[in-house]
């Protein structure tokens, strides 16, 4: 990032490029759009405050991604319970449809519900690896753990998900 560029401009430019993806990531972590947006806003405000102290702005995206994960963890700790809507609200209709779209929606709901039942660290690993498509090294950096921990955490998460979704173990 150009050092000559003002912090405000630089951070805003990063926000414009990455806010959508990071908000989606936080949303998958939290199951709550507003909370996700709050976490992302906070993370970018933190980046802005830290901008002049950062030795290398090429790592700004990684920095803010880690902040989003930290913020998500804090939000989860505060909530102390699974998000209401995504934890499985009461059904309005009991009639199952054979339509593909409905089935796809049902499958997606089950996947997301299972994801939300994972411990936060396992959820982070899964979201970073399979949603954000980060390699193990970047996942480790974002989570603040070693590469080996990413491997073991992801493996445990997949095993748990497979059990929950009643699928074959990967």
């Amino acid at each position, binding site marked *: 990032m150009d050092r000559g560029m003002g*912090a*405000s401009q630089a*951070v*805003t430019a990063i*926000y*414009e490029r990455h*806010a*959508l993806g990071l*908000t*989606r*990531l936080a*949303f*998958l972590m939290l*199951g*709550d*759009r*507003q*909370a*996700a*947006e709050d976490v992302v*806003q906070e993370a*970018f*405000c933190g980046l*802005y*405050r830290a901008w*002049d102290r950062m030795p290398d702005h090429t790592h700004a995206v990684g920095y803010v991604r880690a902040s989003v994960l930290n913020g998500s963890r804090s939000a989860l700790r505060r909530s102390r319970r699974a998000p*209401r*809507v*995504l934890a*499985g*609200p*009461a*059904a*309005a*209709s009991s009639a199952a449809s054979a339509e593909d779209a*409905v089935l*796809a*929606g*049902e*499958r*997606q*709901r089950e*996947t*997301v519900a299972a*994801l939300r039942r994972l411990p936060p660290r396992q959820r982070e690993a*899964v*979201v970073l690896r*399979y*949603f954000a498509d980060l390699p193990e090294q970047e996942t480790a950096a974002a989570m603040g753990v070693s590469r080996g921990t990413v491997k073991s955490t992801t493996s445990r998460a*997949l095993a748990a*998900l*497979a059990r929950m*979704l009643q*699928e*074959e173990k*990967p």
Partner: protein
Amino acid sequence: MTQLEERLRADMRAESEQIGPGSIPALQLPARADPPRRLRRRGPRLWGPWHWPAWVTTLAAAAAVVVVIAGTFFLAHVVSGSGPGPSATGEETVPYSGIPPYYAYAVQGDTYSRTINGTEYGDSVIARYVKIRATASGKLLRTVSPPAPYNAFESFAGAANGRTFVFATNRNRYDKTGNEYFELDHKTPLKFMILRITPGGHTQLSPLSLPGTLTEGQAPTLALSPDGARLAVAYGGSGKPAVVQVITLATGQLRQWTAPPPAATPMLGGPGAWTSDGRTLALGQISVHPSGKIRSARTQMRLLDTNAPGGSLAADSKLVTLPGTDGFPWPFITPDGTKLIGEISHGPPRTGPAIESGALGVYSARTGALLQVIGRWQQHGQRPGMLFSARQAVVWSSLSGSRLIVEMPRGKLNEVGVLSGNTFRPLTHVALAPLLAAINSGGFQTSGGYVGFAW
């Protein structure tokens, strides 16, 4: 890649796409923590709360707020070179002075909702909670959720003392997939809660019992009296009797005014419904034809004397018609009761590189005559950040209306700020400012997916 991994990838992607491109709020950066280097040697940096040691912040929160604000404007003056630096304190230099210390807001995050056969589709079922924040610092005081099995906020209202809020919660039905659609529950009685903020900044939330029941189907609107002691509720009209109630919260004592059909629907705008003496209640009214078409072309307001014992709405109130307005029925009366303020009509927004414009009209509460036009605005071209069309509304007023908090279309957002005459100054410490793109300050309706807040 295994089947499970493929499934995870596809389903997480689909789930995340509920958050669509273009729906992300603009970034709202705080006042800069670090002053420009050329100013750094001047002494302590006073314009960023994060520079205070924790114990100082804790012990001197109120003072810090003032310092932050003063510092912010000091910085603004010095950096821009447009002013002489901080002048004596006053409403022009300290915009938070005199403004209620706390505000409540709810965000639906609903940008794509639509209604088909009475069922609302979209992502507005997410995040049903209200947050209370400090106006000056944006500090979060409390997040309020509906008491289970209730899961939505029908509306809420704040008192002018800035320390009392009332919430009406509802129970909606969600479909099996959780986020696809929900049905409003029109029949279950709403549950009410009241939140009080102590002088020490602590919150006390408790259930609130009201005489009788209210339902979502009645579409009630609310307004708390300035001291937070009485709650006004309005509903009905348009084929049904119009009802206005004033309830003393401590005792449950009820005064009620009604108007038989065909009465217009009375509507309370929340923050601007009461005069500061707690006597006059300003109600907007809207006349809806059975076909659903709105009949009134101009805003009409009914000024009700709540000292009257109750009975006929027409007998105890005065009707004022505001010329040049567009019939949008959110009333606002200045606390001294002398003026009514409303959005002046402007053409419907056009697409493409068109111009939207608007202004607020200040009217005599006695005669309805237009006294002044303030806060003119205009926008060129499309504003992709807007979730709904531009909107300008008053959400708080000083005693005489010389200083207002308004929503003001600016850039890609409806910003919230202080309007003095024609000078608008955004409230940058309102944490929600970047999200206030789709707003309905008059006791918001969750079913519409609005952002709502109460001061």
